[in-house]
């Protein structure tokens, strides 16, 4: 009845008209009638108006009621609408670029997009790429052109940047020492007049459009070898173009829509954003016949190395038998660019708030990723765990498909890994051969759900323990004597050079020469012989047929193994007890294989290849295979050398990285 409320003024009016009529009645009958009539007309009109108003009112009330009725279904959580930024119609960007010895910064329209005043860091040329239509930062790089080869990386990067993008350069500390002619020419071609003459400790800023105009350049020469040039601050304006001009005109397909979204946000991914002939982002590799791992979820563990992730996902999606629906990328942190890469390939990605620091952060990220994987795929019995800095072999899934039943059936197995720690170019030979090893190599491996849920997850190292998850998994309390199956030739390749425990030197020494299988559809040999008991039979058979090498020679020398092919040789080294790896470590060192800790052993036996011959190393007397040693042979003992430089410095950290 609330609807009647608007009426009072009408009532008053009505009242008044009656009152007036009464008053006029005394004066004039005629006038009274006339008045009555007008009053009635007025009243009727008002009634009509009130009615119309009422209709409108009830209509609105009904509408509101309807709104309320849907309230049960309202999202109680998110009632705060995120205000959308008004479309920026501004045509001009103000750009400020600062270059000095200890600090660089770049501000676009008053927003700082780069600021680096950290000590001992960020030396060299900082490059920022802006979208010419939106002004958004698409890439940020720093090339330490004081050091060798960095200028080559810069040239590579600049060549990848699409025409029309806005490039901003600024030098921190020193950027000319190893800036070679080629790089200087590239900078010159971008319109820089100073670049060809940049010299020791000069300060320099430059803003220009790739393949177009120059918006500004400033330079301060270093007066003397021991001093730096004065800080320079460049203020300039950049004219934005229209969005249409900034985009490529690819055919309108779902794939290209993804590509467009990606390419308008980030730079530095090469031909994927090329207008003319973009590289594909869908690969459709051949499906595998009888693929046993089609329904196995794949967890890709990633940090903030989007270029690595891009390379990794390309190789993963090109592997035969891949099932993109089962892939989830777990990003440690709220980084946008890795997520952009994930979306480019149409995969699903999950971001994880970093917990703890350093190794513990990685370890917590692993735990969250593994738990999430099994939550998302509750049917799965296994999960494939990959990292963002791995290339994946074309037959990765074929390899797993042929071996996964072992992990299901053989309780004595801990994992299947795609990585052979000792599988270098010169020590791995047979793509169809598998081993059992007591160590857990990681770097592309399969985890059994029951192992994770029943054993690992409940006692996973807590955030305050700065442990490496992989070292923890290798501890006897976790591994409980179980073994992993690995291939002779790795099905993954570790290409990461930047990382928590990784650097260029270390990568060169231990990872670069790792063998990586590129042959598709390899048929694995005798998979059943990898079962616990069968493997012992197999080893005994091998040792039985193996020729004992001449133990008087130096095992480090090439001539230690005869110049044959396809033979099986055995050598015996001294190994007093199970944990005595003195001689093995020395042997590994001179063979240039993994020597930072012990990997790839099975009951005191190592298997590798030398000169295309299968080469077995047995530790005597700790190994149960010692009985195969002819009594005439004395096991070789190699003394650890007096401490060398470097040999101790790296291992602690290095061993940790080897995941």
């Amino acid at each position, binding site marked *: 009845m609330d*609807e009647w409320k608007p009426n009072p003024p009408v009532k008053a009016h009505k009242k008044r008209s009656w009152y007036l009529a009464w008053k006029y009645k005394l004066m004039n009958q005629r006038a009274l009638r006339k008045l009555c*009539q007008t009053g*009635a*007309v007025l009243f*009727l*009109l008002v*009634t*009509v108006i009130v*009615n119309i108003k*009422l*209709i409108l009112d*009830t209509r609105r*009330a*009904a509408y509101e*009621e*309807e*709104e309320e*009725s*849907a309230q*049960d*279904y*309202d*999202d*109680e*959580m*998110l*009632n705060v*609408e995120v205000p959308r930024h008004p479309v920026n119609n501004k045509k001009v960007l103000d750009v400020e670029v600062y270059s000095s010895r200890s600090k660089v910064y770049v501000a676009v329209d008053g927003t700082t997009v780069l600021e680096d005043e950290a000590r001992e860091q960020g030396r060299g040329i900082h490059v920022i790429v802006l979208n010419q239509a939106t002004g958004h930062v698409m890439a940020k790089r720093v090339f330490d052109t004081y050091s060798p080869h960095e200028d080559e990386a810069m040239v590579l990067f600049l060549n990848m940047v699409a025409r029309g993008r806005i490039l901003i350069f600024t030098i921190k500390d020193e950027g000319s020492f190893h800036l070679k002619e080629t790089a200087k020419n590239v900078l010159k071609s971008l319109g820089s007049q100073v670049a060809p003459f940049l010299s020791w400790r000069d300060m320099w800023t430059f803003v220009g459009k790739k393949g177009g105009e120059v918006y500004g350049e400033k330079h301060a020469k270093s007066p003397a070898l021991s001093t730096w040039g004065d800080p320079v601050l460049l203020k300039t304006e950049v004219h934005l173009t229209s969005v249409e001009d900034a985009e490529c005109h690819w055919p309108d397909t*779902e794939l290209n829509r993804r590509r467009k979204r990606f390419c308008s946000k980030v730079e530095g991914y090469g031909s994927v954003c090329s207008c003319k002939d973009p590289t594909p982002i869908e690969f459709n590799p051949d499906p595998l016949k009888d693929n046993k791992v089609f329904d196995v979820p794949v967890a890709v563990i990633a940090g903030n190395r989007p270029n690595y992730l891009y390379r990794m996902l390309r190789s993963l999606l090109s592997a035969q038998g891949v099932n993109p*629906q089962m892939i989830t990328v777990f990003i440690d942190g*709220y980084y946008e660019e890795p997520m952009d890469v994930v979306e480019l390939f149409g995969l*699903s*990605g*999950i*971001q*994880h*708030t970093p*917990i703890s620091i350093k190794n513990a952060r990685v370890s*917590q990220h692993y735990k*969250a990723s593994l*738990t*999430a994987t*099994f*939550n*998302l*795929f*509750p*049917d799965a019995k296994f999960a494939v765990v990959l990292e963002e800095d791995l290339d994946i072999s074309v037959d990765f899934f074929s390899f797993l498909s042929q071996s996964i039943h072992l992990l299901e059936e053989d309780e004595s197995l801990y994992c299947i890994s795609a990585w052979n720690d000792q599988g270098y170019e010169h020590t791995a030979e047979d793509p169809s051969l598998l081993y059992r090893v007591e160590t857990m190599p990681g770097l592309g491996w399969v985890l059994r759900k029951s192992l994770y*849920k*029943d054993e690992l997850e*409940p*006692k996973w190292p*807590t955030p305050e323990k700065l442990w490496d998850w992989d070292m923890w998994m290798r501890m006897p309390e976790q591994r409980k004597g179980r073994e992993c199956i690995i291939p002779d030739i790795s099905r993954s390749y570790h290409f990461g050079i930047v990382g928590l425990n990784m650097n260029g030197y270390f990568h060169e020494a231990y990872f670069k020469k790792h063998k990586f299988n590129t042959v598709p559809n390899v048929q694995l040999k005798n998979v059943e012989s990898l079962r616990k008991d069968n493997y012992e039979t197999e080893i005994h058979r091998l040792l039985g047929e193996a020729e004992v090498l001449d133990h008087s020679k130096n095992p480090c020398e090439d001539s230690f193994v005869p110049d044959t092919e396809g033979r099986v040789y055995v050598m015996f080294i001294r190994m007093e007890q199970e944990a005595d790896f003195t001689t093995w470590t020395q042997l590994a060192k001179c063979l240039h294989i993994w020597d930072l800790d012990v990997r790839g052993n099975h009951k005191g036996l190592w298997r590798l290849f030398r000169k295309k011959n299968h080469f077995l190393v047995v530790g005597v007397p700790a190994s149960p295979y010692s009985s195969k040693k002819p009594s005439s042979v004395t096991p070789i003992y190699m003394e650890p050398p007096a401490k060398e430089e470097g040999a101790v410095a790296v291992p602690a950290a290095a061993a940790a990285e080897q995941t």
Partner: protein
Amino acid sequence: MQKINRNVVLALLSLTSLVFLLFQLCYYKFYLSQKNGAAFSKVRGSQSGQDSTRWHVVRKFLGLISSHNIPVYLIDPLILGLVDKDIEQIRSSPDGPSPECKYFCAPRDFTTFALLDKTWKHDVGLFRTAEKMGFQWLKIINKDPRLDGMDDLSGMEIPLHYIFKLASHAIHLVVFYERSGNFLWHGPLRLKQHMDRKFVPFRKLHFGRYPGAYEKPELLLVSIDDLKVQIPKNPSSFLEEMSQSRFLECRYREARAFFQLYPDDASVDAVEFRKKAKSVLHLAALTLNNLGVKFWLSSGTCLGWYRQCNVIPHSKDVDLGIFIRDYKADIIPAFQKAGLPLKHKFGKVEDSLELSFQGEDDVKLDIFFFYEEDDHIWNGGTQAKSGKKFKYLFPKFTLCWTEFVELKVHVPCETLQYVEANYGPEWKVPVKTWDWKSSPFNVQENGVWPIDEWDNVIQLY
């Protein structure tokens, strides 16, 4: 003349006014009657025209999804109800042409279908085709509950419901997800602020008021009203399941806050106990489900779920509740067969029944039977050495599904009242020393068993 004219005008106007007043009355009445209905059904065309519209919309929709190879199945309670009446006939003649439009023409605003998330590839092309066919569609997305229990993972939001609207009919497509515990889950339907609240009368939807949990259904391809469609093999049991499908998510955020206050026990003993408790619970669930006995998490196990989404490591046993009306004599032999021998039996079916089974390595499984009264529910306890009886009172409750240690199990929907009744307002504070005779908030002394009954009501093994 003027007078007459004026009078005529006046009369006319009065008439208009009257008409308006009448109209006003009618309108108001109409409005009142519509209050609980929806604008949707206001515009009802001729009955037969409507009937075939529904059928046509369903046919178009089935065409749309089959062109994209998306396997959906019918879960519309109204149609399944009709189908269930003729199920034998439909099963026996899967391809027979039907003489009349019996099912898909039945009056209703929606037709509801289910889609298993993992069976399709989130193909955007579907929606483009739908638009070309004239459908308007609405997608309802929300957080992925499978990641909710995890510390700060932010996944992409997942689609929970789709609504496809064409003419005056709409298709409600409910997306089902697989959850740990081997069951299917669908999310609640919650509209975000910017969404069109009048897109369809959301209140009339059969799914979406609450999240729901279902077994994975066996499907049957049938032809009804000349349309080929998948339906649950046993529609009546599906409808039964649907009526009791409400799902409660564990309160993960509160559980995290709890662990901030009281860090979790990660000792070897705690890990071991949790593992054993989990396996006992799995075994018990399997046994009781096979018998068709409905049970729920009770006492400490329920508290563990509600407070910390996990087994309480110092609780030392697993507690389940069963309504006495669901009691079956087979329960004891079935547990015995499953490897859980009877440890003791207190009370009798008529009064205070309680069973205890011995799980592996000292983990005890306690089953309390609950007796329903007019205004409360209670279960009993018995002290073996004195024959004393105890009674634990609870407010009335209904049962909801939840996920717990990779298991789909029941808990009281009104969990807070249940837990508060049992543990009092301080239930959030962990208590390590617990006496079942005095600690519970809702315990009452209930006399003593007569000595001559002791042999029957106090059985220890």
